């Protein structure tokens, strides 16, 4: 099927749990985890047998060259791939120990616990306020005062409140790219998820906006479990506690970020993080 992997790559099964990495005892237990996860789009296999925990209140970065399956992995965590025709998964994905693919699982309820921020910011063509309030309204919140409070809370948490305070009812499309992305983060935070998925959240932004997002992530991890996909290795090194390296749909290596970047165990990982390919 694919090219031969270096012979020293251990099978995914031996990477069970966070205990594999050195000094792993410092990592909190997993909030979400995947076991033996494989995914297909029609006939094309996107993920092969991935096993990976996502520690609570930590930032886990998924890195790898484009096409390696990191975005696919992210989207299986909130079952957003359900809406892609022909998409299929096998294996186990668990939130707090319960499989999210169990028959009768309420996908809508799942997505209220596992929120997502997209690569290209996609605010609704409505006011700033309505963007953030939308998630609250569809979840049944009616009290106008409470909605207003939660909106302000979320905008503060996303570090954008001071910039939009005076223009809550202007269209979200009048904000700059970086502001729109932080608005999308506020929108995701408003429904108070437990896990936050971020797909290359700063890839379309300038360095200053990127820095603000990274600082934000650092603050957010105190409250949320964060999984971030990034193709920018410096960003992964700056922002994450734990890093998982994927290549062609397979998990090659996983461990504490400093370890993965300074003393990678696999040759492939070393080649990637030193820029020899990808």
């Amino acid at each position, binding site marked *: 099927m694919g090219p031969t992997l270096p012979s020293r790559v251990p099978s995914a099964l031996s990477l069970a749990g966070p205990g594999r990495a050195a000094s792993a005892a410092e990592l909190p237990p997993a909030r979400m985890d995947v076991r033996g996860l494989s995914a297909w789009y029609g006939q094309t296999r996107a993920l092969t047998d991935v096993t990976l925990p996502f520690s609570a209140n930590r930032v886990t970065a998924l890195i790898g060259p484009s096409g390696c399956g990191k975005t696919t992995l992210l989207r299986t965590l909130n079952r957003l791939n359900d*809406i892609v*025709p022909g998409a299929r998964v096998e294996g186990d994905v668990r939130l707090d120990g319960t499989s999210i693919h169990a028959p009768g699982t309420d996908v809508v309820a799942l997505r209220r616990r596992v929120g997502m921020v997209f690569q290209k910011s*996609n605010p609704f063509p409505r006011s700033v306020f309505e963007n953030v309030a939308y998630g609250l309204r*569809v979840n049944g919140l009616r009290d106008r005062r409470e909605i207003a409070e939660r909106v302000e809370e979320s905008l503060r948490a996303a570090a954008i409140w001071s910039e939009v305070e005076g223009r809550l009812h202007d269209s979200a499309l009048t904000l700059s790219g970086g502001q729109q992305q932080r608005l999308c983060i506020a929108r995701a935070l408003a429904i108070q998820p437990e896990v936050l998925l971020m797909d290359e959240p700063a890839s379309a932004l300038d360095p200053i906006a990127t820095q603000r997002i990274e600082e934000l992530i650092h603050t957010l991890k105190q409250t949320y479990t964060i999984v971030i996909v990034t193709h920018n290795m410096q960003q992964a090194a700056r922002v994450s506690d734990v890093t998982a390296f994927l290549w062609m749909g397979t998990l090659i290596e996983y461990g504490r970020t400093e370890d993965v970047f300074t003393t990678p165990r696999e040759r492939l990982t070393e080649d990637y993080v030193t820029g020899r390919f990808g």
Partner: protein
Amino acid sequence: MTSARFADRAFHLLGLTVLVLALGMLGALLVDVARDGLGRVSWSFLTGYPSRRASASGLLPALAGSLWLVGLTALMAVPVGVGAAIGLEEYGGRGRLARLAEVNIANLAGVPSVVYGLLGLGVFVQVLRWDRSLLAGAGTLALLILPIVIITSREALRGVPASVREASLALGATKWQTVWHQVLPMALPGLLTGLILAVSRALGETAPLIVIGALSYVPFVPDGPRSPFTALPIQIYTWVSRPREGFRANAAATILVLLAVLLVINGLAIVARDRAARRRSA
């Protein structure tokens, strides 16, 4: 100049000529109708009733009938058509059933309007016994324009980017909440355009209404959906078929009224659509 260049220039001229001729036909038609009918358009004509004497005839029943028809037809066709479009586009998937529905709708769009009249005759008049009423006429027209409504509504829905749906679903909204709160408002301009197209079509239809039994001589204004009726296009046809000269002017005048109504409806729709579009991107 080489012969090839000459041929090229000649064709350029030919193309322009053909286009001018075709549009000239349109102009000739409008001028002819205006010349024949403009003098006949008056308040007494618009509010009068038909009579044996051409000069005493008016088209109030036909105008009222057309407005009734348009209203009832829209009431029937719009919810069903938009609902079907949403069902097929947002929930339908790519399976064989969805494709069958799509092929079927495309075929229905190409069925001659008289055949819809026969359908209306068989179902609404004979089986349901709605008997040459506005209800039968509106039902027939609603079925006629349903494929147009569905096709144009689907186009409008497709124009909404997938990122909006994904963002909404990722926040834990249900499919219907996503459609109702995000997709439909964004698709509104396109939906309106399609609806107006369909309603304009219904306004101008004659044959299906004749087949289900719309009357030619109606000296009264309809008083409800079960009432017999006539409509502007039928009035035009009736008067065109009468050999006396006076009726020809009546027909032309009615044509002017019909075209004016179409103009107003289309104009309103363009305004409404632009306003909806502007609100989206503000």
